[in-house]
Each structure stands twice: as structure tokens, then as C-alpha cells.
């Protein structure tokens, strides 16, 4: 029943937003950024459990890599301190580099896996790293079903927008 949309723009034009699901943070490992891999029941009919879990696990791995405390992060920290943090005017931090990778990954996932199923993943960075927002779209053409949410471009904030990372 999922609309055969292979283009994110097409998705937004032809489908209306039905509802949103929010994947919450998982704090069992401490304050590092991890998301729960529990499969939300709203997605039951839209996407395979395994695909979803794989996406979330990959994201979790990316975040773990960004926040990894080890030799290279210490080096970066010490070098930055030695230059009174002026070095960040010309250099990107390791964390920012990984966030860009995450953006690209989410965009890829949206194009390949989620959009064809009428779903859209929003980069957590645009939601303050609190949640992974998944927008569920109903196809307007085939819809007779309830579309409760607003039909505006609320999905417009996503599509792997890598520009979500603000300045320091």
C-alpha cells in the first residue's frame, strides 16, 4: 500500500503528512547520544523491523564514534587548548565531521529506503539531539484514510539537511 515514490520532492507534493513518530534517547549507557532501537508500533505496516533497527544502530554507532574518548580526541583537545581555541576558526572538530557523515547517511537512507515507503527521517541535530523524528506520509491519491496532521512542509526541515549544525 506504500506509495511508490522514489523522489523526496515527489513525496512531499503528492503525499500528506499523517503522523509523526519520535524515537527517544536511550540513556542506559550514560549521557552519550544513543537512540532506542525499540520498534514503534506505528511503523509496523510501513517498514521491516530489521531495516529500521539497522538504521538506528548505524546512527548509534556514528554518535558513539563522534563522542569517543581516546587518543585522537585528547590530542585535538590539547592542541585546541594550546592555541587558546583559535584553531577552531580554521578547523572542524571531529564531532562536526561525524555529524556531516550522519547527515549524508540519513539523506541516503531517506532516498533509498524510507521515501519509497512513505516515510521521512529527520536528522536528530535539527531536533536538538533529543529524538529521531519519523514522518509518516499518506499518499493523497490513494488516501481515504485519516490524515490527522497538518499538511504543510513540516517534512521540509528534513531530507538530510546537513546545514542543521549551527555555529559554536
Amino acid at each position, binding site marked *: 500500500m506504500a506509495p511508490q515514490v522514489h523522489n523526496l520532492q515527489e513525496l512531499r507534493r503528492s503525499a500528506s503528512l499523517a503522523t509523526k513518530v519520535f524515537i527517544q534517547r536511550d540513556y542506559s549507557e*550514560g*549521557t552519550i547520544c544513543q537512540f532506542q532501537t525499540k520498534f514503534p508500533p506505528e511503523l509496523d505496516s510501513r517498514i521491516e523491523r530489521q531495516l529500521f533497527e539497522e538504521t538506528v544502530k548505524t546512527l548509534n554507532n556514528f554518535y558513539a564514534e563522534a563522542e569517543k*574518548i581516546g587518543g585522537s580526541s*585528547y590530542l585535538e583537545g590539547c592542541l585546541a587548548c594550546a592555541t587558546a581555541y583559535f584553531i577552531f576558526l580554521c578547523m572542524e572538530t571531529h564531532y562536526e565531521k561525524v555529524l556531516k557523515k550522519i547527515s549524508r547517511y540519513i539523506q541516503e537512507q531517506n532516498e533509498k529506503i524510507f521515501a519509497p515507503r512513505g516515510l521521512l527521517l529527520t536528522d536528530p541535530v535539527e531536533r536538538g539531539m*533529543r529524538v529521531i523524528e519519523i514522518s509518516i506520509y499518506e499518499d493523497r491519491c490513494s488516501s481515504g484514510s485519516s490524515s490527522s496532521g497538518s499538511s504543510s512542509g513540516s517534512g521540509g526541515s528534513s531530507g538530510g539537511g546537513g546545514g542543521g549544525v549551527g555555529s559554536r
Partner: protein
Amino acid sequence: MSVMVVRKKVTRKWEKLPGRNTFCCDGRVMMARQKGIFYLTLFLILGTCTLFFAFECRYLAVQLSPAIPVFAAMLFLFSMATLLRTSFSDPGVIPRALPDEAAFIEMEIEATNGTVPQGQRPPPRIKNFQINNQIVKLKYCYTCKIFRPPRASHCSICDNCVERFDHHCPWVGNCVGKRNYRYFYLFILSLSLLTIYVFAFNIVYVALKSLKIGFLETLKETPGTVLEVLICFFTLWSVVGLTGFHTFLVALNQTTNEDIKGSWTGKNRVQNPYSHGNIVKNCCEVLCGPLPPSVLDRRGILPLEESGSRPPSTQETSSSLLPQSPVPTEPLSSNEMPEETSTPEEMPPPEPPEPPQEVTDAEK
């Protein structure tokens, strides 16, 4: 006939951010609203150092070594850089939940607690989590409509939830949290060293010059010395003590907020689950760990409305990327929990083993 050039004004997200912050340089700089004490800090540091460089340094560079003003300059520049970095950066503010998200969380809470009859206060919203085999409670923030991550706290002065909230420091004019704690620590450390340095060399200067022209003559010639010594003396007690206190906190990977609340002390309380158990590891993580970028996106551009220059009103902008204040429903009415607006978010009260806190003494 005059031609009017209409320039499209780009609205950036910082202009519509909730919370009580001030933004400068088109969103690049972020501070608290009350900046008076910050200006005082700047004035004291700049004033004292100017006097030192102008008077004592000239004499000491000739009599003792030219390295003296060089080191002083390095310390001064480093402490100014870290001060400005602490004051101007985002401490780790957690953006408020958008209406969809808030409604979703609200539904989840109702599912767990059941709906509350009208007029009754809803139960406190707390989620329990296990971190490293310790149970940690997550509290719901009524203002930001989110479950606060562990170690986050809501600053009542800035009206924001801040990650790894330490305290709100009026001397730097900003909250101290996850993203700027290391700058804050380096600032008070370098300021302590600078204070000790200036104090010591003022004494040396007075001593050396007194041998030649006498004590009273020295003071008459450079009256600024007295002022510097006074400022340094009072600063020493507060800033050096504060540095010691924060060194203790860093070594244990605790925040001032947790220390005041006694989160990890006492027999019946859990042990600090964030500490690695090793002082060096804790220090490395707090001071040299990875630095997350700001998630506020202050300089992002807000989508323009169809109607053009009309400032977007709170309820109309449907596709807004910013948290708007939703129409409060029954359970969401502003039941501010007592803990939320209490003082632990603010300056630490005086404690016996610690020297006078940030509020009291004049800082250099």
C-alpha cells in the same frame, strides 16, 4: 520621483528563540540578559592589567628581566580568550520541543499515568533509567516540554534547559554547561595564575623600588600599585578558591549543581555513575573530551512567510522550525514543579570549606 529599494530582511532563527538570552553579531554571540557583572569583570581585568603593564612592567623589565611582561601578556591574553569564549558560546542549551513532539510525549505520559481529573495537580513526571547499574531519574521540564537528559537542568535565569548544567555565572554573564565548562575552568585557572603573578610582581616592584627611594615615595610615584594590590588580594581569595573547588569537581566528574544538591553523596544515594573512578581519566574527559557543536542553529534562516515582511506570529507559522508555545491543554498547564524554579541552578550558597563564592567578593 524617488525609487524605493525594498530590501528583503532575512530573519535568522536566533531572533525567534525562546528563553531569556541576548544575541549579538547576528547570532554569533550568545549571552544571558544581565550583563552588568560581566562588564565589571572585564573592567577589573583590563584595568588592573593595563596599570600593571604601564607602570610596574616598565621598571621590572629593565631591572629584572624582559620576560616578566611577556609572561604576563601571555597569561592575560589566554584568560581574556577563555573568558570571552565562556561568555559568548552556547553552554549546551537544549532546544524546546516542537508542538508535535510535546504532544507525543504528553500522550506517552498519559498512557503511563492515566488522565488526571480536572483541577488536580498531575503527578510529577519522572522516568527511571539505569545507567551503569545505578538508577537515575529523568525529570520532565514543563517549560521546555521535554524529559531532561541526565545531568541537564533548567536555568531559571536564562529560561533554558542546559546539558550538564554546572551553574549560572553572573561574572561571565552566561550559564556554564557542557559546551563551555572547559573554557570556564581554564579561565578561572589562568585568572588565578595571572592574579598571583601580578600580585607577586607588584610586591617585588614595591620592594625593589623602596630600597632605592623609600616606601612612601614609591607609593606616591605609582599610586596604581596600591589599587592593583588591593584588587589582587581580594581576587586571590575568591578565584583561587573557586579554582580549587572546580579542580575537585573535575577530578570527580561532578557538576556544581550535583554537588549542591548532594546527588551523589550520602549513604542512601547512588554513587556518581559518570565518574571513571580515575582522576586522570575524569580530568581528560571533562577538559579534553570531544566538544559537541551547538544544536541551536542560531544563524539558520527562517523560511519567509507568503505575506512577506509581516513578523510571524506565534500560532500562525505552521511549518515553523522553532518551538512555538502551543495552546496549553489541561495536563500541560503551567504546573511549575517547585524544584524547577529553585535556586540550585543559580550561584552556589556559601559552604564552610569553600572560600567566598562567586557572588560576594569583587573579582579581578
